[in-house]
């Protein structure tokens, strides 16, 4: 304990020595040999990547890879003492006899609760840390410590540097993410490398239980080619866990506003590595939280002072079932899975995207979809270090938006019949019962070859096709021209190639890449007299860029990247959502020069204390920036010809073991219309925000291995204007006020997480929070979540 400072260099020397020995041994050995391989787990069966495994008598050692697998080749016949070690765990020694046949030897290390001391070895990296070292501006969130804290994915993301999540309302509302000042679809979301939106609308990020997530990779700026993305602002990739062979995870949460969230996730492994994954999610909420609203006197039009009224038409229900079967870890596939996702959704809308005097009491939207999926992964395909990753998704979705009521509601739930203009809906100009059928095909393929551990070549192709046909029995009464009466299609094809070079023992990594973006739209567009005509448009764009990262010292890393890239419009941006987001069929791709510079610093000190600090600078010149513009309660996407963005972000984090962590982060982004004389800040987007998080988790108490956790998070968003800031006198301008809120959660888990219970209180001070266009979010709410988790790792 007291020798920490001295022991570190020694251990580093030892590691180097071990690696060197291994290298030499491997080259000179010629006699009858066999290989020894296996995996390292902890007591609970969790993988322990980057553990060291040593054949003591031979002085041969390796470090297990990110999947916690190790392999020592060319071991001469004999009996050996093999030890496995990992910081924070008791070293385990096992005897093994090899006689020319390869042997599998797994280790299960016991946590060393006594002395989680010593050795903060430089070589010690977990997968999370490893992702941080890619030559991208990346922030990898280890969600494992959060799994007992009843957090949903959005909450987890909200507490990461540069990320801000805005939500129109309660459960089931639309989310809009912004990453380093880029938002909406400039930021792409992936689940195991597959874009989340292809799984259908129910498959929202937030519906994935944190329980099955291993880590969340957040790429800022340049996105690796294997994600096949045309994201401008970055990407978020949720990596699900493959660790457990059999597991069952059941959780149920309930809370304020009659909110229920149930999730089952399970996996079963059979003979010959046949695997079945099955999961189901169910969400329900009345979302009847109170918002400040005004009543109108029917005769005089007089408007009362704002008072709190409970929402009565914002309930949400969604369900989803996913079954996936296939094989893993066979000769021809590391993973081959065929699956089917079925989902259904119903959401009611009391408000559009702005606060109104007369809320909607009858508007709702339903969708149901069925989505077959295919995933194939193989490492060492034909030759060593060549890997192939293929995914194909097809989906068929039926959506209906209903706004047919002639009632005019008040916030107290009473209504009168509309006296005139009865063709108008509650939110829509014309009553609508718009049904549309979507068909979407998506496939992505990545081929990666690593040569000499230093050269990585990656080739990706992502193809997507989207088809929508719609009908509206109501609107067609007034207008022969109904949108989507003929099918509208969008085809996108993105090809990317990258080369990554690692120098100085991979301390300096550089990637160069080139991308080709193709888009074809075949759509119906309205002419001046609002008649529809069909038009086909093709665009081809190129993108190039580089990213480089360098460890200046072992604690200090610099990253920088530049790209000239394109973002193709998403289907929803182009085609609308059939209710509140209007289509813009002539939306152009967004082009941009992006420059990122980041500094990362990690300082371990005094035994188990670690200080992390990160700072980033971004500079961007987007052309035809795709932005959502408000039109009353509706919105539409448009291109902003010339914009300029620079931003700064910073985060400081202190942690002690896995027990205490304190983080403060802040982001400032200066996003402006690049036209004189105003260079106006783009309105209705937060530009200064920050978070502070304190987390404390006890060590295991009592025989039942009880752990108590406590988490506090504070969110801050500076006031921002609804309209262009340069216009009008500041004191009369409409603004979304400064917001400050606090969330608290307490959790209790026993038997290593087998039983969990957590209690959360969101918005503790009941402060007024707003999102898009002054739409009020829930006040103080409580939530209880129960979770049961069992798994099995060994055969």
């Amino acid at each position, binding site marked *: 304990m007291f020798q920490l400072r001295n022991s570190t260099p020694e251990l580093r020397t030892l590691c180097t020595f071990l690696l060197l020995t291994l290298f030499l041994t491997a080259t000179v050995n010629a006699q009858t040999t066999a290989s020894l391989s296996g995996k390292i787990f902890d007591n609970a069966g969790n993988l322990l990547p980057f553990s060291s495994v040593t054949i003591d008598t031979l002085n041969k050692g390796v470090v297990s890879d990110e999947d916690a697998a190790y392999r020592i080749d060319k071991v001469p016949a004999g009996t050996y003492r093999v030890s496995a070690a990992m910081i924070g765990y008791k070293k385990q020694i096992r005897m093994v006899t090899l006689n020319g046949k390869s042997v599998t030897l797994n280790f299960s290390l016991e946590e060393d609760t006594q002395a989680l001391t010593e050795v903060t070895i430089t070589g010690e990296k977990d997968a999370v840390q490893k992702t941080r070292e890619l030559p991208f501006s990346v922030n990898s969130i280890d969600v494992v410590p959060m799994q007992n804290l009843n957090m949903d994915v959005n909450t987890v993301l909200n507490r990461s540097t540069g990320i801000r999540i805005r939500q129109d309302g309660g459960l089931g509302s639309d989310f809009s993410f912004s990453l380093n000042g880029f938002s909406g679809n400039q930021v792409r979301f992936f689940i195991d490398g597959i874009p989340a939106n292809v799984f259908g609308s129910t498959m929202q990020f937030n519906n994935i239980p944190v329980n099955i997530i291993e880590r969340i990779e957040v790429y800022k700026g340049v996105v690796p080619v294997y994600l096949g993305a045309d994201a401008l602002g970055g990407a978020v990739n949720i990596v699900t866990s493959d660790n457990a062979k059999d597991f069952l995870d059941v959780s149920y949460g309930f809370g304020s506003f009659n909110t229920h969230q149930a999730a089952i996730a399970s996996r079963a492994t059979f003979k010959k590595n046949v695997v079945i994954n099955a999961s189901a999610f169910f969400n329900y909420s009345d979302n009847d939280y109170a918002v400040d609203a005004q009543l109108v006197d029917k005769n005089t039009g007089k408007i009362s002072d704002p008072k709190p009224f409970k929402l009565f038409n914002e309930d949400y229900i969604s369900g989803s079932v996913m079954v996936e079967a296939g094989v893993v870890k066979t000769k021809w596939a590391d993973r081959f899975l065929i699956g089917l996702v079925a989902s259904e959704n119903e959401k009611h809308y009391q408000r559009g995207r702005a606060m109104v005097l007369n809320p909607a009491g009858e508007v709702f939207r339903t969708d149901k979809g069925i989505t077959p999926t295919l995933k194939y992964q193989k490492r060492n395909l034909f030759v060593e270090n060549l890997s192939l990753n293929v995914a194909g998704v097809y989906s068929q979705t039926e959506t209906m938006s209903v706004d047919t009521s002639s009632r005019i509601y008040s916030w107290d739930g009473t209504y009168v019949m509309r006296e*005139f203009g009865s063709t108008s809906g509650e939110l829509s100009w014309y009553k609508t019962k718009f049904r549309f059928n979507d068909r979407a095909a998506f496939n992505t393929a990545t081929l990666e070859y690593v040569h000499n551990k230093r050269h990585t070549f990656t080739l990706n192709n992502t193809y997507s096709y989207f088809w929508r046909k719609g009908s509206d029995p109501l609107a067609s009464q007034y*207008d022969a021209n109904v949108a989507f009466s003929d099918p509208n299609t969008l085809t996108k094809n993105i090809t990317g190639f990258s080369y990554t070079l690692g120098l100085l023992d991979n301390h300096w990594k550089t990637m160069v890449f080139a991308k080709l973006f193709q888009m074809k739209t075949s759509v119906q567009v309205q002419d001046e*007299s609002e008649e529809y005509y069909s038009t086909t448009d093709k665009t081809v764009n190129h993108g190039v860029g580089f990213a480089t990262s360098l460890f200046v010292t072992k604690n200090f890393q610099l990253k920088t990247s530049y790209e000239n890239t394109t973002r193709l419009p998403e289907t929803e941006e182009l085609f609308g959502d059939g209710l509140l987001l209007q289509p813009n069929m002539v939306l152009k791709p967004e082009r941009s020069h992006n420059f990122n510079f980041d500094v990362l610093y990690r300082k371990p000190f005094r035994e188990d204390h670690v200080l992390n600090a990160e700072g980033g600078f971004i500079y961007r010149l987007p052309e035809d920036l795709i932005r959502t513009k408000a039109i009353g309660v509706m919105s539409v996407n448009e291109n902003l010809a010339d914009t300029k963005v620079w931003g700064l972000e910073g985060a400081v984090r202190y942690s002690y073991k896995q027990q205490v962590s304190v983080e403060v982060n802040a982001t400032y982004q200066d996003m402006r219309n690049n036209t004189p004389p105003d260079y106006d800040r783009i309105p209705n987007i937060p530009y200064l925000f920050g978070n502070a998080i304190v987390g404390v988790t006890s060590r295991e108490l009592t025989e039942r291995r009880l752990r108590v956790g406590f988490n506090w998070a504070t969110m801050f968003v500076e006031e921002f204007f609804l309209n262009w800031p*340069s216009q009008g006198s500041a004191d009369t301008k409409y603004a979304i006020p400064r917001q400050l809120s606090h969330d608290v959660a307490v959790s209790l888990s026993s038997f290593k997480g087998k039983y969990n219970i957590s209690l959360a209180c969101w918005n503790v001070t009941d402060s007024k929070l707003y999102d898009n266009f002054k739409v009020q979010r829930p006040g103080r709410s409580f939530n209880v979540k129960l979770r049961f988790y069992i798994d099995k790792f060994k055969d």
Partner: protein
Amino acid sequence: MKIYTRRTAFLLALIAAVASSCSSDNEGKSIPEHGYLLGFRTATDPTADYILYETDLASGTVSARGNGIEQGGWSYYAKAGDTYLALDYDNSIAKGYRFKEDGLGLEEVGEFAFERMDCFGKGLNGTAIAIGAPWGGGSYDCKIQIVDGASVSIANSKTTPIYESFYTNDEEETIQLNAWPTATWIKNNKLYVSFYPVIGPTWETPVTDTAYVSVYSYPALEYETTFKDTRTGPVGYYSSQPCVLEDESGDLYTLSSSSFAAGYTQATKPSGILRINSGESEFDEAYFFNVEEEGYRVLGGVYVGNGKVVARVISVTIDNQAPAWAAFSVVDAPIHNIAVLDLEDKTIEIVDEVPLHGGQYLTPFMVENGKVWASITTSATDAFVYEIDPATATAVKGARIDGSEIQTFSKY
């Protein structure tokens, strides 16, 4: 110690400099004691509306940069007594403003909600008339509302169809037409409403051979009669354009546009001007000014004096090719002229100094010293105030509008 002080002084100076530069940025224009009140629309995307105070329309720039009272949405303006009403069409909320006691600037004095207000007129005793109509059809009733400026609320209202008429189409179907109000005024205890018949949901105008005015008792708002004239088409068009003008003697002149750009889907009578003699409830059979004969269709205008009207017109040639509703496109369809009409001589003279320009909703004109101020937008980057002299039919380009248009002019 000395160094310390000097450094502190420097720091304070720096802070002061920064602070003062900041405040000068944020400080709006000072509010003049007398001037113009403007309803200003920016050229930003999306546009935003502001109420501005200006002292000079003849030169310089009219801008909402750091200046003006922000409105909640796309706004119409009206006046009820000394209360200025800004009617936010996006949110259906009307805000009332009055000048403060010291005369320096407006203060918000109240707000009310409305279902629809499409057509405005001057009321009695500090009120305004606002008629709501069924946009997109679905029903045939309109709502005549009397807005009280003092209490900033709707004092009285009456639901009425204004005029019931039917049309039989080629398929022998009988379709009820909506009467869309275009102008309203009060005279001799009667409330008058001019309107144009339209098929509610489709905005088609199958009946365009008659000018109509409905008559109501005032203040009871009981329907009495509708008087007509078949020498020209309906009076006015969508969005309460200034289409009924009063001269010095109280005679009223009604403008019938018969214009495709203004939303008519057919025109069966020439665009022209009829007269309603003061106090009468009928058109003067002795008077008709056939404007179309002169090669133009008249959209909206203002009476200046001596029988002269300054009007926004569109040439028949352009109008015949114009897409529907082009007369409402501020930026994209510069198809209008400004003309001086002589009501007695029945002549029209185009004001050459004013270029072809876009149309407006609720077209605002303001008369001052025998001249007329108008907002003229020719492109996304070019909008100016023009001062039009009806005596010489000439105009002078005034202040640049650093926005897309001025929605209302008012002198205070």
